[in-house]
């Protein structure tokens, strides 16, 4: 036992097919092709929680033969159990195909496909080839494991491994325990035979046993869900339908008493038919006699009786044929559910619909407003939608979906589609079907940008071009826009283009065979009308040709034919024939290929449109920035959002997957997170909700725009997350994966490949200021409005005020002691990588090797700041008696203003040391200094001169005498110092690098994750080669001699880190500026070197990290898997089941092969 377990575990470890879906996705799938798991889910229409765990070639034998349905049942019991080998093999229908096992489903398909991890991409997309009308799932079955009642291993003499599977089909919940199917006395009419599925596995003994072990595990899990399944199936019309012989069916099944949904319990026998949509109340569209509804019902009755119903249905060729001829009204909804797979979604979360409605009861949203506008205009000619009943259902389904998928919300055309669905489906059924439609069948159609719609239009056009070149040339020549007519076809599934009854026929096939049907029908329409269309030379006549064609779809296609049979063929039938015969070659594969081909350009178009619109709509304030700056900000803004979303998706997917594996439970969900596509978050993909940056994103944004926003001491991801996670109430990105994020976080830097942003009080203040609505997030508009006063005005007074206001917490026009210190900190923080003083800096190039001078220039700033602090406290007003002080201050300002010109000269002087030709004019500023503030000369700055002031400053720090400065004081103090003045005049504004001088590092950030191009490329640096500032400052050149030396304040985190001993630090600066500067400088140099080094090796490092991460996660998952395996040990589940003890696993004793063993029974 132990040994076998061990073997099992080992096998799982090495079996690539057990790789969890999303991960397999990421690792094996950089091209953006759908992963195997996705293909698997698509083929069998399974929920996103399902992954292909095991697969094996198998032969399915169905014992039933149409004519002997009744007596065959008895016989079946005889032969299939005891003497399989002896039984005439010809008795049943045989299908060879693949048997697949996922967490909750057992699927069989004759369409030969392989989803094992190492199968080639070609093999896994094979099913998307021609399906000959069977749909991608082919003939076979898709059994929820909870629908399996019993699995027996059959006697075989050969090495064959055969299983007999019986399902709950036909067992009334009341009499099911007896296990005797049709003999059950409680049923008034004999319940239909539960068909047994016999599956013969073809593979090595080991493979077979592994498959069976997996199956057993899944079946045990499934036990819990049996009750839920009963509930769900009780909403299926077939349950009622099959309770009677066809002729005995109560005649008018239209009990219009709107049975409340979900009363499944109890009196099964008395239960009326389930809700089959508004049609049961308001009549189904079309003349049911003409549609031959009754004979269709008879055929379906027969088929379902023999082949199972709802979740136990087996698809045989007749099934597909019956669908092609059009579904009968009462079964239409159920078959749509089954063929589209929405049934399985409902099975997983039967209460989701009600829960969502209940959760959001009474809430409002933009989507709801939009929905309300359209409720009265959705199929308004259908009686059901002229009544409150119909409108109410429509409202609830659309609303519930808009909550479920807020990214999509509500899109016009959904109202029409849902209205149509509601004619045949109950509210919850329509809800799940809508969700399948939006998420899987029509991906991106209804999204914010409708990229799916646009893409498929492009695909359709290219198919027209390919299949009907003459018509295409004609269209091009006459400038007719094909999508003008075809767009509504796709978007509303032909529902408002064709008469309803025909649109529903299209839908019947569409749900079975998938999106390609829309293309086939569209092409067929054009082909049939080809000649008339060739006569149409403008949009108008083109449209009217098609309009009149749709109007006569129901008429005979050959009205003059001699042959009455030909005369009976309607245009619609002809259309179907053309669509599915002539355009049979249009397969899902074709569509996928074409989509992949056109995706790039279409998305780019949408993005440039979105960008244009968004920039234009920014408002008047934005005009302060140049269009190129705006474009730059837009790109940068969305690049950050996009990159972050990408990272989050990946981390989340890994996280989810790990958790899921750990618990091994079947978690439902239309899980957007699981199908991580690389484009997630691209603007064009309509990542609706993400249009604003939270604080962390804001930091990342700034780090790409301003050098000072890059941290000096990159922290380890773990530490970083600890900090962010601890930040209460942050709606930050980190909170999305709390807890164990440390594990996955290690996989890659949470900041992606870009520089890690710094964390500083100043950033927080800036964020708070920009976030003017106080939402905790900044939108693009906020960013633009935040930057416009800084970059746009270039007015020194304004930027001084701007800075002051950042620190004026209570907006009372004064900044207190704490604020003053923080301001100084911020000034140091901002200048620690040098101050870029605009035009002056451009001249710094030639000063090669003028090390001493440069240093002194950087010292200037440190000196200026320390002087600033000192003076702040000198000139600060005590909180009381501020008035007299103010007078003085005003005076000072006036004086300063008078001296403005001198100040300007002084400002220039700051840069002049860099300028070889300039002669330093210290006298000017010194003269003024003496007059005004007796500012110590920079040249004498040092211990000696500051020592006495130190005491004064410390006196001002005395908390017992609260002081503050006002804006005029602040202004005065700034203007009094040419370094600071120059900083506020241009340095501050210049520190934000926009399009005119992009920060080189911002281009480092943008190459996005997973090797994809960023949504919108950044302007290349070379776009502004004339801007000397930019190359000169590039960190990449830091080694070069011409680089301005790092500012003395540049200790970065060391000096300005929040929570450090603020005062002590400042004292240090004041008393020992030179020493600090030297220290800072050393550290900065180190940091810079570090930065350079990491920049050069970043690529490889990241790769390594990625690999490490993968390994870690892989290990974790494997561990989880093993755990789950352990939890699934028979002993445990037996207790829960309480049923007959399960037989020991066949692997246990080698003799299992020769005797029949009940593997599983309920």
């Amino acid at each position, binding site marked *: 036992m132990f040994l076998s377990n061990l073997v099992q575990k080992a096998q799982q470890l090495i079996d690539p097919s057990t790789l969890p879906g999303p991960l397999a996705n990421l690792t094996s799938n950089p091209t953006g092709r759908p992963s195997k798991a996705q293909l698997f889910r698509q083929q069998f229409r399974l929920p996103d929680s399902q992954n292909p765990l095991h697969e094996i070639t198998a032969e399915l034998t169905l014992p039933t033969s149409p004519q002997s349905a009744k007596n065959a049942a008895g016989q079946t019991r005889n032969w299939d159990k005891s003497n399989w080998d002896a039984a005439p093999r010809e008795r049943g229908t045989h299908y060879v195909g693949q048997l697949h096992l996922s967490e909750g489903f057992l699927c069989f398909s004759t369409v030969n496909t392989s989803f094992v991890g190492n199968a080639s991409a070609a093999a896994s997309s094979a099913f998307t080839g021609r399906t000959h009308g069977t749909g991608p799932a082919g003939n076979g079955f898709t059994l929820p494991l909870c629908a399996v009642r019993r699995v027996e291993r059959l006697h075989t003499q050969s090495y064959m491994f055969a299983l007999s599977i019986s399902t709950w089909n036909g067992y009334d919940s009341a009499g099911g325990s007896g296990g005797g199917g049709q003999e059950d006395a409680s049923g008034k009419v004999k319940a239909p035979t539960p068909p047994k599925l016999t599956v013969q596995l073809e593979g090595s003994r080991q493979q077979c046993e592994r498959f069976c072990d997996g199956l057993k595990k899944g079946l045990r899990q499934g036990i819990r869900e049996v009750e839920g399944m009963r509930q769900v199936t009780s909403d299926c019309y077939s349950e009622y339908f099959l309770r009677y012989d066809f002729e005995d069916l109560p005649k008018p099944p239209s009990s219009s008493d709107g049975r409340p949904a979900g009363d499944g319990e109890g009196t099964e026998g008395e239960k009326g038919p389930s809700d089959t949509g508004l049609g049961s109340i308001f009549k189904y569209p079309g003349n049911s006699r003409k549609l031959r509804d009754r004979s269709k019902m008879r055929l379906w009755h027969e088929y379902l009786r023999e082949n199972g119903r709802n979740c136990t249905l087996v698809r045989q060729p007749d099934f597909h044929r019956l669908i092609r001829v059009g579904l009968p009204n009462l079964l239409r909804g159920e078959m749509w559910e089954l063929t589209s797979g929405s049934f399985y979604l409902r099975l997983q979360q039967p209460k989701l619909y009600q829960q969502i409605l209940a959760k959001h009861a009474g809430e409002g949203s933009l989507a709801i407003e939009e929905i309300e506008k359209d409720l009265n205009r959705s199929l308004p000619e259908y009686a059901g939608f002229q009544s409150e009943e119909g409108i109410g259902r429509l409202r609830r389904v659309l609303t519930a979906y808009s909550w479920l998928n807020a990214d999509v919300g509500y*899109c*016009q055309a959904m109202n029409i589609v849902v209205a149509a669905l509601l004619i045949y489906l109950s509210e919850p059924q329509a809800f799940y079907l809508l969700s399948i439609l939006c998420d899987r069948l029509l991906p991106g159609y209804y999204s914010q940008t409708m990229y799916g719609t*646009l893409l498929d239009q492009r695909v359709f056009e290219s198919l027209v071009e390919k299949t009907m070149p003459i018509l295409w040339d004609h269209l091009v*020549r006459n*400038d007719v*826009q094909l999508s003008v007519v075809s767009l509504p076809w796709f978007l509303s599934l032909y529902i408002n283009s064709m008469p309803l009854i025909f649109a529903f026929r299209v839908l019947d096939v569409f749900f079975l065979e998938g999106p390609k049907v829309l293309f086939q029908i569209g092409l067929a329409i054009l082909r049939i009308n080809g000649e008339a269309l060739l006569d149409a030379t403008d949009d108008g006549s083109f449209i009217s040709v098609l309009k009149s064609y749709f109007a006569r779809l129901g008429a005979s296609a050959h009205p003059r034919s001699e042959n009455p049979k030909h005369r009976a063929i309607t245009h619609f039938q002809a259309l179907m024939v053309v669509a599915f015969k002539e355009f049979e070659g249009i397969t899902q594969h074709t569509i996928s290929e074409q989509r992949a081909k056109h995706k790039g350009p279409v998305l780019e178009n949408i993005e440039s449109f979105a960008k244009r*619109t968004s920039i234009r*709509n920014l408002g008047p304030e934005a005009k302060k920035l140049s269009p190129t700056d705006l474009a730059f900000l837009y790109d940068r803004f969305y690049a950050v959002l996009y990159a972050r979303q990408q990272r989050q998706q990946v981390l989340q997917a890994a996280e989810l997957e790990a958790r899921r594996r750990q618990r091994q439970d079947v978690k439902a969900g239309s899980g957007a997170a699981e199908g991580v596509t690389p484009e997630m978050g691209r603007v064009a993909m309509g990542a609706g909700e993400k249009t604003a940056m939270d604080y962390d994103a804001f930091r990342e944004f700034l780090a790409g725009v301003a050098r000072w926003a890059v941290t000096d001491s990159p922290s380890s991801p773990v530490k970083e997350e600890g900090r962010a996670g601890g930040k209460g109430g942050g709606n930050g990105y980190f909170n999305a994966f709390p807890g164990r994020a440390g594990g996955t976080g290690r996989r890659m830097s949470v900041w992606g490949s870009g520089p890690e942003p710094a964390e500083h009080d100043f950033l927080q203040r800036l964020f708070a200021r920009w976030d003017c609505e106080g939402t905790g997030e900044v939108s693009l508009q906020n960013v633009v409005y935040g930057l416009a006063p800084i970059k746009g005005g270039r007015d020194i007074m304004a930027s001084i005020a701007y800075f002051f206001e950042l620190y004026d917490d209570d907006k009372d026009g004064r900044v207190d002691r704490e604020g003053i210190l923080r301001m100084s900190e911020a000034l140091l923080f901002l200048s620690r990588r040098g101050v870029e003083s605009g035009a002056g800096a451009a001249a710094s190039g030639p000063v090669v090797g003028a090390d001493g001078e440069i240093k002194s220039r950087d010292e200037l700033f440190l000196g200026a700041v320390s002087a600033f602090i000192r003076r702040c406290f000198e000139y600060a007003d005590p909180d009381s008696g501020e008035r007299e002080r103010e007078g003085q201050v005003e005076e000072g300002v006036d004086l300063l203003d008078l001296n403005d010109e001198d100040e300007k000269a002084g400002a220039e002087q700051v840069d002049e040391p860099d300028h070889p030709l300039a002669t330093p004019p210290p006298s000017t500023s010194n003269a003024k200094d003496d007059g005004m503030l007796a500012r110590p000369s920079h040249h004498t700055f040092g211990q000696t001169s500051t020592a006495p002031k130190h005491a004064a400053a410390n006196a001002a720090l005395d908390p017992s005498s609260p002081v503050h400065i006002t804006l005029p004081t602040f202004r005065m103090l700034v203007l009094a110092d040419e370094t600071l003045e120059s900083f506020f005049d241009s340095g501050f504004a210049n520190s934000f690098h926009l399009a005119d001088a992009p920060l080189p590092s911002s281009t480092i950030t943008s190459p996005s994750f997973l090797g994809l191009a960023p949504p919108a490329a950044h302007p290349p640096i070379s776009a502004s080669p004339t801007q000397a500032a930019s190359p000169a400052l590039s960190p990449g050149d830091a080694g070069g001699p011409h680089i301005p030396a790092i500012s003395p304040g540049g200790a970065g985190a060391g000096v300005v880190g929040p929570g450090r001993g603020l005062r002590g630090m400042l004292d240090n600066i004041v008393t020992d500026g030179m020493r600090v500067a030297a220290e800072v400088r050393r550290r900065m140099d180190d940091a810079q070197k570090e930065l350079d080094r990491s920049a050069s090796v970043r690529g490889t490092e990241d790769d390594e990290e990625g690999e490490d991460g993968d390994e870690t996660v892989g290990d974790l998952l494997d561990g989880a898997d093993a755990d789950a395996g352990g939890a699934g040990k028979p002993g445990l589940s037996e207790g829960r089941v309480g049923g007959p003890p399960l037989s020991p696993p066949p692997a246990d004793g080698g003799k299992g092969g020769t005797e029949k063993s009940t593997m599983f029974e309920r």
Partner: protein
Amino acid sequence: MADSSQPSAPKPSSSVKLVLLGEAAVGKSSLVLRFVNNDFQPNKEPTIGAAFLTQKCQLPTRTIKFEIWDTAGQERFASLAPMYYRNAQSALVVYDVTKASSLVKAKHWVAELQRQASPGIVIALVGNKLDLCEDDAEGGDEGEGEGQGEEAGEEAGEGKGEGDDGKVRKVSAKDAKSYADDEHLLFFETSAKTGHNVNDVFTAIANKIPEASLKGPRGGATAGGGTQAAISAGQDSSRVNLNARQGAEGGPKEGCAC
């Protein structure tokens, strides 16, 4: 057909492409329906993508055949708009006088057209649903009811949203007019329900279409549908929707911000 505008016809006839833009449910389709069929439907299905209709407009000296592109109003359909307004010679930008936000959206459209559409496009700003607020303030409350306020029902939402405030009109004619003047737009307030001013809008547009432009891209010597071949040559590459914009852009404002 190709020669219809030659001597045989007394008045020269030319076709003019007109596009309707504006927020959802402001009554674009209803305006067109009124103009084309002189009809009004209280519950008109929302336009998916766009609808195409034509109608002639008789002027003293000539006949204008409007080829009307009625577009979907919902925000997310905006990205489709370029394929409809491409080559348009005139545009109706519609807002709802009972809904202030719809004017904001209208302004966006005007800006978009001025930048991206054909140069010299004639734009009319139209405030619709005048019937809801014409005579008295009570009109709005009626708008909520089933019977009277069909138009409010049709274009749902706003009747409900605004009715409570008593005053129904949310956009004053003066404001809108002054904006229209600033931007050199034609300006009208209409009611598709009563038909008030509807024809006037189209006539005014027809009058303002410069003679020259009729000879230009669309009208030409051979009026009517056949002429379109003339302009198609330069645009063969841009088949789908958004590309259309680039076609239009290629002309006047090549180097725009984006």
